[in-house]
């Protein structure tokens, strides 16, 4: 039997980016792979753009007949839509593939993650960033900019801070919801579509003036699946509008707390889901 090679007893070496190396490299490779399918990528980009426009069109059609909805006029809703859609499209781009767990299990991709020295969720996150969703973000940014311009907003450092805080936390909230969805997939066999109710349902709800919601919906999408934080509350705040019952507008500053709540639940659900998977379920 051969001697243990010297390489085995050496300390772990350092690479240029340190612990971030695996993630950066994998993410880069995914982006490269997506660009190699050039025509398909362009098509997808275009399709994503159309989806963004269709969603904006939907809002616009509603306001074609009605001047004010839930205390917001069209310009206000433009801002609402922009904030919501920007957060969701970015969140979808970075985390949207996570609810695909059944597919990853079937293809053996998840097993491969277990054989690598990084946390499984972290590997999953960087494994498939969908660049094509950027087109939808483009529409969202356009709507957001339009909303910021058209409305009478009192600009200042706190406004900028609120915008940044909202967008970053919004992306985090939607990202966390996709992790909920992924984690639940481990237990939901065949019934996986249920998670669309809070990922895509949450996105839809976040782009509406929540004042029109009945109490049950206000509590659900305000506090349980706190998507109201991603756009509606900030919109009220930015435009200095009155708050509806149960949803005071000063909560807009607590969007990061909502994001922490979402990720806290995500961590618990993920741990439960992977434990279930490792115990032979699925």
């Amino acid at each position, binding site marked *: 039997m051969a001697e243990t090679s010297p390489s085995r007893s050496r300390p772990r070496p350092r690479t240029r980016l340190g612990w971030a190396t695996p993630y950066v490299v994998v993410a880069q490779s995914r982006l490269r792979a997506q660009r190699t*399918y050039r*025509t*398909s990528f362009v*098509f*997808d980009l*275009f*399709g994503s753009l*159309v*989806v963004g426009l*269709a969603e904006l*069109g*939907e809002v616009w*059609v*509603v306001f*074609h*007949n*009605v*001047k*004010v*909805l*839930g205390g917001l006029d069209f310009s206000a809703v433009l801002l609402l839509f922009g904030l919501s859609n920007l957060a969701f499209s970015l969140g979808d781009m970075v985390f949207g593939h996570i609810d695909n767990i059944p597919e990853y299990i079937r293809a053996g991709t998840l097993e491969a993650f277990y054989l690598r020295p990084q946390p499984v969720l972290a590997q999953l996150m960087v494994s498939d960033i969908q660049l094509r969703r950027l087109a939808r973000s483009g529409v969202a940014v356009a709507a957001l900019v339009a909303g910021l311009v058209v409305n009478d907003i009192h600009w200042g450092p706190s406004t900028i801070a609120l915008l940044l805080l909202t967008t970053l936390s919004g992306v985090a909230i939607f990202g966390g919801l996709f992790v909920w969805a992924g984690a639940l997939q481990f237990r*939901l*066999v*065949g*019934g*996986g*579509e*249920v998670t*669309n*109710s*809070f990922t*895509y*349902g949450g996105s*839809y*709800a976040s782009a*509406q*003036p929540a004042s*029109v*919601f*009945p109490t*049950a*919906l206000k509590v659900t999408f305000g506090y349980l699946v706190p998507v109201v934080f991603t756009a509606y509350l900030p919109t009220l705040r930015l435009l200095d509008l009155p708050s509806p019952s149960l949803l005071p507008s000063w909560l807009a500053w607590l969007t990061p707390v909502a994001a922490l709540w979402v990720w806290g639940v995500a961590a618990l659900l993920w741990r439960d889901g992977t434990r279930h998977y490792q115990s032979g379920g699925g």
Partner: protein
Amino acid sequence: MIVRTLPGELKTLALLARAGFRRESTYLMAMLAGLFTNVVFGFIRASILLAAVDSAGGQLVGYTRDTISAYVWLSQGLIGAVMLTGTAEIGERVATGEVAVDFLRPLDVQAAHLATDLGRAAFTLIPRGIPSVLVGALTVGLVLPTTVQPYLLGIVSVLLGVSLSFLTRFAVNLAGFWIVETRGVTSLLAVVQSFLSGLYVPVHRFPGWLGGIAAATPFPSILQAPIDVLSGRVTGPGALLVVAVQLAWVAAVAVLGQVLIRAGRRRLEVQGG
């Protein structure tokens, strides 16, 4: 039993429909999951549109609170059957080349796939269609016609709507004979179809020019039409006209499908599969 008395080809189609129905019934969990999501979306949409009706003073383009609620819950209920955002199986069969097998069979490919899809759609009405309307009726409240006629005509209309949805998806998926990656085209269809069929807002609320565009497409006949008939928004000769328009579109798109299938088959033969 009914099946046995039908003439040859019709019997085969009926059997295919039954097979489609049975196959879908194995996905019960998925159906229930879909129902849950439908209901959540239904609640959100209902709140928005009810607020819109209130904001317009109780009446919006002919919709009152009750009738717009009916629109919301009927549309949510029919989503499963109409399947606006799916891809037809034919697309994959063309991509893998399996479609050659379909051509060898003595049955018309389009009719065969349509029959199967109708069976599938029929099943979805049980766990998704009717419960959605029930939930809406019990929670938000809605109003549906009390006479029999809208329901009888409504069944025909739903049938035509489902067929039309399938036929448009079928025709677009046949692009696979000429384009390698059909995902872009099919997803584009899904978005346009969803929008113009009245899934998000009733087509009647579209501004003039957009309504004109929608009318020039088969999409309103897929979802808006059956809902209008079932909810009693159109009755009598108006309803018959709506159904007639649906029928016309079904015929037109079916013919398009036939043309594309034949062209595709010729291309397959020329290329050697």
